[in-house]
C-alpha cells in the first residue's frame, strides 16, 4: 500500500467556529475503485451464473428470462468474468510491482495475534472475555481478503478453462475441463454464501453499521468508529502524530 495520508481533517462542518470532525483515511481511491469493480462484476456473475448451477430450481428460468435469454446470460457472464480476471491481474500487478512498500511490511498478512483474536472473539460473544483490540485489519477483514484472493484465483483459472475449453484441451485432458466446472461452481457457491451471509452481516446488517458502513464509498472512518473498531491502529496513529509534532516543535 502506498504511503497514505494518515488523517484527513474534514472541513465540511466547519464554519461554526469549532474544529471539524476528524476522519481517518483507510482506503485509497485505487482500493475503493477496485472494490467497486469487484462488486459490479461479482453481482453480475452471481446473478448470471447461479441459474446454471441450479438449472432445476424454479427461479432459474425466471432469472434467465429476466436477463434476456440464455445467450444473453452467457454473454453477461463472460463479459463480467473477463472484467473480474482483469481486475485480479491489476490487483496483483499493482500491489506487488507498482506499490513500492516491502511486501513483508503489508498489514494484511495473517499473524499469530489474529488466531488469538479469533478465539477471543468467540469467547467475547459467549460473554467470557473482553472484545479483542484490532490493529489496522481485524482477523475478519484478513479472512475476507484472503478468502476472496483464493476464490479469485480458483474462479479465474477454472473460468478461463471453461471460456476456452478447446484451447485448454490442447494442454489438459477433457476430464480436467469437467473438473474445472466442479471447482468453478462449488467455489462460486461458497463465495456467494460467504459474501451474502458473513460479509454483508459485517458491513450491512449488523446493528453497528446498519444500513451500511460508508467506508466503501468514502474510504474513511470517523474518530469514534476508529476507536471502536481499530483501537490499536488509532493509538499508533496518535503516537506517530505526537512524535511528528514533537519533532516539528
Amino acid at each position, binding site marked *: 500500500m502506498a504511503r497514505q495520508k494518515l488523517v484527513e481533517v474534514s472541513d465540511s462542518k466547519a464554519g461554526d467556529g469549532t474544529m471539524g470532525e476528524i476522519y481517518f483515511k483507510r482506503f485509497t481511491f485505487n482500493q475503493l475503485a477496485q472494490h467497486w469493480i469487484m462488486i459490479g462484476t461479482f453481482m453480475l456473475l452471481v446473478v448470471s451464473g447461479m441459474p446454471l448451477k441450479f438449472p432445476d430450481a424454479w427461479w432459474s428460468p425466471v432469472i434467465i428470462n429476466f436477463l434476456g435469454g440464455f445467450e444473453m446470460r452467457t454473454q453477461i457472464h463472460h463479459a463480467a468474468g473477463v472484467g473480474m480476471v482483469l481486475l485480479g491481474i491489476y490487483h496483483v500487478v499493482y500491489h506487488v510491482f507498482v506499490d513500492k512498500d516491502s511486501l513483508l511490511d503489508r498489514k494484511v498478512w495473517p499473524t499469530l495475534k489474529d488466531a488469538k483474536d479469533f478465539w477471543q472473539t468467540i469467547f467475547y460473544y*459467549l460473554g467470557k472475555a473482553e472484545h479483542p483490540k484490532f490493529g489496522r485489519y481485524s482477523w475478519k477483514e484478513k479472512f475476507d481478503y484472503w478468502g476472496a484472493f483464493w476464490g479469485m484465483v480458483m474462479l479465474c483459472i477454472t473460468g478461463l478453462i471453461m471460456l476456452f475449453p478447446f484451447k485448454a484441451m*490442447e494442454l489438459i485432458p477433457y*476430464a*480436467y475441463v469437467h473438473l474445472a466446472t466442479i*471447482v468453478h461452481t462449488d467455489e462460486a457457491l461458497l463465495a456467494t454464501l460467504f459474501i451474502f451471509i*458473513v460479509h454483508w*452481516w459485517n458491513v450491512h446488517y449488523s446493528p453497528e453499521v446498519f444500513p451500511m458502513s460508508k467506508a466503501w464509498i468514502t474510504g474513511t472512518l470517523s474518530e469514534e468508529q476508529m476507536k*471502536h473498531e481499530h483501537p490499536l491502529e488509532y493509538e499508533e496513529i496518535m503516537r506517530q502524530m505526537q512524535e511528528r509534532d514533537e519533532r516539528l516543535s
Partner: protein
Amino acid sequence: MLFTSKNQHVSLKKIVILITVIAFSLLITTVSAQEDVSCYHCHTQVVSEFRNNIHYQKGFSCDDCHGGKAQPNTTVISYTVMSGDFIGRPTRSNITNICSKCHSQEAKDYKMSIHWEQIAKGHPEAATCTDCHGIHEIRAISDPNSSSNHQNSPATCAKCHSNKELMSAWYYGIKTDRFDTYKESFHWKALKKGYALVATCSDCHGNHNIKPHEDPKSSTYPDNLPKTCGKNNCHPDVQFDAKIAAGLVHDKESLHTGELVFNKTGMNPQMKDYFIGPFDLAYWIAFFFKILTTGVIAVFAGMVFLDFLSRVKIHRRW
C-alpha cells in the same frame, strides 16, 4: 275405447322412435358432410390425431397407409373399405415398407441402422419409423411439437432408451442412463433454457442410419468424433483430435462414486483421466468443497449468530 287408446299409445311410441332415427341419421349426415376424413365415425380418436398429421394437411387419407378404399361422407359402414390391399394395423416389421412407398431414401438409410438390424434379426421392439415420428400424429420435423423435432429428440429417444425392461433384454444390454447422463451436459442445460442450437441425441448419433458407437462407420465411433463435433454449425473452427473429442459427454455424478480403484486395466481411457492414483478427482474435489463450504459457512454463520445474540444481551458493545 280401451283398444283405441292403447293403439294411440303404440303409434306415439313408434313416431317417437321414427323421429329419433331420422334425427340421428340427419345429424350424422350433417356432421359427416363436414368430415373430409373417412373412418371418423368409429375411429374418432385416431382421426382426431390424424388431423394434426402433416400428411392430412398435404391431402393424404387413411387408405394411403392402411390400404383398402376409404370413402368420405358415408353414413353406413362401407364394405369396400376392407377390400383389396387393406392391411389394417401393420406389424412393426412392416411399417417401414409402408413409409418407403413414398420416403424411399429415408427407408434406405434406415435399413442401414442398428434399429433395423435388430428388427431384421427378429426383435420387432427395436425402433421403427413410428416410434420416433409418431403414429397417427406425424408432424413435420420443423414443428416444435413433433417428437422428431430437434429439441424433442432427447425425450423421444428416452422413451425406449431409458426403459430398463426394454434395454436390459438379453440381446440388447444397452445402458439406460443415457438421458440422465446427457442431462449433466451443458448441451441439455442450455436446451432446457430455450437455447435450441445445442446438440441433442441425433446431432451426434445420427438419425435414420444410426449405428452403435463400436461400428467404425458410426458418427460416434471415437475416430469419427472430431468430424462429428466439428460439424459446420456446431464447433467448426476448433481443431479436434480424437483425444479431445472423445470426452465423456455422457457423464454424471453417479459415475464418480469415489470408490478407490487401484487396478485400472480395461477402464475407459477418458474415465482414466479423472484419476490421480486410486482417487477419482471428480468425486474427491466435490467432496472437498462440500466439507470446505459447510465448514466455513457453519463457522462464520455461527459467529454471526453469536454476534447477534451478544448484541441482544449487551446493548452497547464497547
